[in-house]
């Protein structure tokens, strides 16, 4: 079981991450990835010129690691990658990349899904969208909380 959890400030290439994740893999049959892109429009349809993701050094990495470890324990996966960007992000750029490898596709799908649901609500990031009419803070929406509740029998 290999866990690779990284918080980076440089551009994140999902294809390059997938390539590295697949290299030399022959024992497992299924790899699921999630790529989250910075949207060009906010939830209310307003234009987003830039996104800033603040984090708390130490705490944020730990929250990412905790989520990845919980997924590794809960699902029959063989490897997990979780890479998250911090700092200023332009629409279209990748914010987060998650990959899960497993012998059976169900475990790979569920692990990636679970990691994203927890990252979206519990990861220690503070997100601001800047647009023509100023900047505003983004908080988890009800949809994110509802998604997380699906796993509630084991989430803390």
């Amino acid at each position, binding site marked *: 079981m290999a866990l690779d959890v990284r918080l980076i400030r440089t551009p994140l290439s999902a294809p390059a991450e997938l390539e590295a994740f697949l290299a030399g893999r022959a024992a497992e049959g299924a790899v699921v990835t999630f790529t*989250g892109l910075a949207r060009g429009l906010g939830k209310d349809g307003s234009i987003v010129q830039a996104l800033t*993701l*603040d984090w*708390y050094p*130490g*705490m944020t990495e*730990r929250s*990412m690691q905790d989520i990845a470890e919980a997924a590794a324990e809960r699902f029959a996966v063989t490897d997990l990658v979780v890479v*998250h960007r911090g700092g200023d992000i332009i629409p279209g750029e990748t*914010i*987060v990349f998650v990959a899960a490898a497993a012998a059976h596709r169900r475990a790979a799908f569920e692990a990636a899904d679970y990691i994203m649901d927890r*990252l*979206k*609500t*519990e*990861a*220690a*990031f*503070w*997100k601001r969208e800047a647009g023509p009419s100023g900047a505003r*803070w*983004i*908080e*988890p929406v009800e949809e*994110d909380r509802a998604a997380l509740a699906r796993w509630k029998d084991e989430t803390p």
Partner: protein
Amino acid sequence: MTRILYFGRVGERLGPDGRLELPVGGLAVREIRRRLAARDEVAADALLRPDVRASVDLVVVGEDALARPDQEIAFFSLFSGG
């Protein structure tokens, strides 16, 4: 003087950090928050909100938790999530 870190909306209002004199035996988070908030209206408005949480040594804690001067103390608004 112990450095207190601010993140999210709190950091936006008060800057990335502040300083507070803490007794060697430490203080409850509730009292640290009260003393920081007592400084001015901006600090009060930024800190005295139920959704502003605190952490001690990177662990999110409740209001009763004790924080000593050698520990890392932070206040922050609700996480946005990743």
